[in-house]
């Protein structure tokens, strides 16, 4: 393969760890919680990244449920705020990431977990047994990125109709969609479905109802 030309649209800044972010919040400083987690799950936590005072804890897939249980039951992070997936779209590293945002309402703390997933095996254990709030978020993640959640009671699509077969948040899905994947209603009373999303531009306007042929009855 020929070496691709390296081209950046803008000069890329690297993150400076020592730079003080003016929007840092006290609530995201969870260093002591992470220490506890590290002690309890030495193999479960692969990395901890800090940016803008926010800690992102990378956990392995096998220990995700255990860590969530510990967060909920012993550390007080009982409120799931957000759950979503990210498509990294790279070849060299795990392609998908799913992040979980938990809040401890009484201690006023916020923590973020992240799990990396391979492209060939985008399966995660569901945490709906622990947090009911994860239900719709996991369904949305499945709809948008095609990540399967094992043990989810009702893994249907969240937004798109079941008749659709793609996962639009993936980077390879074109922004304008795939023509013909979502049919439009027929343009004539007896006609077939419109598979062309730009039918108005190519086929004239739809018939008016008074143009229909005489009734046989």
């Amino acid at each position, binding site marked *: 393969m020929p070496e691709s030309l390296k081209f950046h649209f803008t000069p890329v800044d690297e993150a400076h760890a020592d730079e003080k972010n003016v929007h840092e919040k006290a609530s995201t400083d969870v260093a002591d919680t992470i220490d506890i987690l590290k002690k309890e799950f030495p193999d479960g936590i692969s990395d901890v990244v800090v940016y803008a005072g926010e800690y992102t804890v990378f956990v392995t897939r096998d220990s995700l449920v255990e860590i969530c249980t510990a967060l909920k039951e012993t550390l007080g992070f009982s409120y799931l705020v957000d759950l979503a997936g990210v498509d990294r779209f790279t070849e060299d590293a795990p392609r998908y990431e799913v992040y979980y945002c938990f809040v401890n309402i009484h201690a006023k703390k916020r923590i973020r977990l992240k799990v990396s997933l391979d492209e060939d095996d985008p399966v995660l254990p569901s945490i709906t047994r622990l947090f009911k709030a994860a239900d719709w978020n996991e369904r949305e993640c499945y709809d948008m990125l095609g990540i399967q959640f094992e043990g989810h009671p009702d893994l249907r699509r969240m937004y798109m109709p079941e008749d659709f077969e793609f996962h639009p948040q993936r980077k390879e899905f*074109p922004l*304008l969609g*795939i023509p013909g994947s979502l049919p439009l*209603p027929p343009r004539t009373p007896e006609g077939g479905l419109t598979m062309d999303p*730009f039918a108005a531009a190519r086929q004239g306007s739809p018939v*008016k109802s*008074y143009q229909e042929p005489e009734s046989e009855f």
Partner: protein
Amino acid sequence: MDSATGYLTTTVDAVVNWARSNSLMPMPMGLACCAIEMMAFGGPKYDVGRFGSEAMRFSPRQADLMIVAGWCSYKMAHAIRRVWDQMADPKWCIAMGACASSGGMHRCYGVVQGIDNFMPVDVYIPGCPPRPEAVIHALMDIQEKIRNEYSVTNDYSSGSPHAELAQPESARLTADGRDLSLNGSGLVHA
């Protein structure tokens, strides 16, 4: 009008059109942000009751003007079309806002790029969202359109008076775009 005898001559068309145009009952297909401006259009300040259209009918069978307000997703398109098919003739449609007219700023996989891809539209309103004044203007345009229609003399809803109308459009239209089937019926084809 003759004041001594007290009668008035007019055409049936004029009376019917006058009645129709001043009592349009909108079916608010409120989908997104434009629906809020549509509420303002029916609300106290802009008061569309002045134009006889304050009675919003949420049942398609009681309405004759559909206002599609907001972007229309592919998933919703079939519901809109079904509601439109349930409305009784004669009926008119306003595509309110850029999204309903052409997809607008939402040029992406979920949004139909203009509702005229699957249903006929009479008036398009630009704006994102249009101000209520613009919606009132569109309503007045529809009224104008109704007043210029031949509602009884050429009532196509109970079958076409012209056999030619059943022909495909290509057979009826002349090279310069005139409609042969309408000749002699008094219709001026613009």
